[in-house]
């Protein structure tokens, strides 16, 4: 089987895991949650194998490059990092309700890659502008950042829901305590911010080595900076003005909207970045 095949199957494994996490949370059952963790781990293994296999395939085709250069490949890597970071957090904090909010994001990323008719999964050779080691550094760091922000987004929604929980028996009470959600969100945002910064920086260094300018205000660059401004606002509001809880959660949601726009929305704007709409 080729890598696209493995990744298509992984999409369904992720769907199953996401469903089990939600089921376990809504029906307050522990067993489906445990199964969900196993299924999610199998999915992650599939995702990683698909990624590596695609790398090998590109060598067999005589193209030989890391699978990180178009929309399909970036989505596959995005799903991989979300699943990986989520599973690490689940191990550390031992609460599977987070899976109901984080894991569907990994599923959606991979489903969009595998199922959308607009996204080609063909392994294509690199156009000259993308032949640079900075490309790999740039894509890897950006997507680690995006994945951290994605999970922070899921946790922020949990936080906002959790605050509305009134009755003791509510399924929302199964969430981690608000204090923990708040702290964890912030930790993820710091991780994301560090990697977003490195992502923007490696992008700038790459642009400088390819075109002789490190910054050109093209829409993709500008939107990544807008995202950076939003999260920078969040960090200052929290460190200096003592913002916590709900306001941070909302800023985190706004920040993730900016991330999504940087990733997908920019293709709708006039501009010349490398991931065209057809990927």
């Amino acid at each position, binding site marked *: 089987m080729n890598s696209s095949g493995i990744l298509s199957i992984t999409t369904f494994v992720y769907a199953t895991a996401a469903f089990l996490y939600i089921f376990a949370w809504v029906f307050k059952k522990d067993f489906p949650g445990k199964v969900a963790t196993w299924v999610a781990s199998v999915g992650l293994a599939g995702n990683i194998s698909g990624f590596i296999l695609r790398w090998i395939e590109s060598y067999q085709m005589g193209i030989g490059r890391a699978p990180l250069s178009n929309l399909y490949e970036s989505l596959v890597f995005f799903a991989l990092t979300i699943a990986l970071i989520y599973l690490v957090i689940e191990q550390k904090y031992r609460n599977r309700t987070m899976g109901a909010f984080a894991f569907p994001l990994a599923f959606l990323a991979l489903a969009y890659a595998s199922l959308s008719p607009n996204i080609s999964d063909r392994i294509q*050779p690199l156009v000259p502008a993308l032949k640079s080691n900075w490309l790999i550094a740039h894509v890897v760091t950006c997507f680690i950042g995006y994945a951290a922000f994605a999970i922070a987004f899921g946790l922020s929604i949990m936080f906002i829901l959790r605050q509305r929980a009134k009755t003791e028996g509510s399924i929302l009470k199964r969430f981690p305590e608000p204090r923990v959600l708040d702290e964890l969100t912030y930790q993820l945002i710091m991780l994301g911010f*560090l990697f977003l910064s490195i992502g923007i920086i490696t992008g700038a260094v790459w642009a400088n080595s390819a075109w002789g300018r490190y910054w050109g*205000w093209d829409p993709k660059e500008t*939107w990544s900076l807008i995202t950076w401004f939003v999260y920078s*606002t969040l960090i200052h509001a929290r460190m200096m003005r003592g913002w916590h809880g709900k306001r941070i959660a909302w800023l985190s949601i706004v920040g993730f909207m900016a991330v999504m726009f940087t990733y997908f929305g920019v293709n709708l704007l006039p501009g010349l970045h490398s991931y065209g709409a057809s990927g």
Partner: protein
Amino acid sequence: MVKNETSPDPKNRIWMFFASVKLTVALLLTLAVTSIIGTVIPQNESPAAYVNAYGENLYRIFSVLNFFDMYRSWWFQLLIIFLTINVVVCSLERLPKTWKIVSVKVPPFNADRFRDDNSKVDFQSQRSVQTLRQAFEPFICKKFNYCRVEETDKGVLLFGEKGRWTRLGAYIVHMSIIFLLVGALIGSIYGFEGFVNIPEGQTVNQIRLRNSNEIYPLDFDIRCDRFSVSFYETGTPKEYRSALTILEEEKPVLQKDIIVNDPLSYKGINIFQSSYGSLPSESLTLSISSREPQLGFNFVKETKIGEPVELPDGKGSVVIQDYTNSAQFGGRSIGEAFIGVLTPKEGEPVQVILPLRFPNFDRMRQGDFIIAVQDYEKKFYTGLQVAYDPGVPVVYLGFIVMILGCFITFFISHQRICIEVIRAGNSSRVMVAGTSNKNKLGMQQKIKRISEKLQGMSQVNSPTT
């Protein structure tokens, strides 16, 4: 930060305005929102294109607001200047206090603060205070860079701490932002960015600047010896390559093939592969044959643009008038083509299009003669981006400092630990407590782990003493 809003001194008021984090948040959000404008409105297009897209009235309004070149507009630059002043003033305002905390030789400890901590851990040990002290001290001193033991009348206090300097993390990040802005300023004052097209075999010594469109002389010559483009089987471009020679006073001093992502650097000026094109071909070889073979002839002739070719037996003449990069036929682009006129002896002159990609194209015309391009001289020009930016090293320094600063600010904390060992008859009571200026949850877990270790040490060796 000191709040001092009632101060009558206007100088002080301005200082305080710029020292405010409210201003930071406001500026960052304003920058985030206004930056969107330039991504929605394409920048630096021609006025005609804008009038066409937005209409006369909106065009005027946008134009007054500098929306068509907004990242260089006075108001956007003003926001950035405010941000810079904000970081500088705020850091100056707070740095002395932070520095006082960071630079102490003997870190102060307030044991009572640790005793009151509600996540502290207590346990009993059968061993004496001094034995425990001897066991704990090396352990704590290894885990923390600074450690100190104090004797009290009830027993001993062990303090340990590390990462005091990480309180400077935010200043490091802010310094990196200053580096970036200073680097950008240097670049915009002393740098330039332009482009030049060089036909194969030719030499230039000036470029055209991108922003002002002015001619800018270089103090050396660039010659393009060769340009080549290769394609993958799928037809997408694989590599653009220009063989360039730099000449000083007509003598070659440097030679290099450049490709995208691998520029040539000379005297701090970087020359990048950026585009290419083919040049009007001067000479070509035509093949002309008659449609009906029995009648026929088929001959080949070398010619130049504008030079008529006589058909045999006085049947007329053909002249190639033009070469184009993108000929149109039936509303579709058919690529590079020669365009000429066929004038038969009898009848009207007709236009002939000879696309290079479709050698049999002229058959479709259904004329008496079929004309094709058999061979032609192909020449390229290379499009180079030429940039000089002395600010880049400063910007790159800013990049590195920013990554380090963010890492320190986010993930390394100032951690302090206090262990109190108190005599309780023959045995001892131990308290372990710790604080951290960030990631408090993580610190609580760390204290738990450390106290488990300590508990292990205070029992294993001599449980009966």
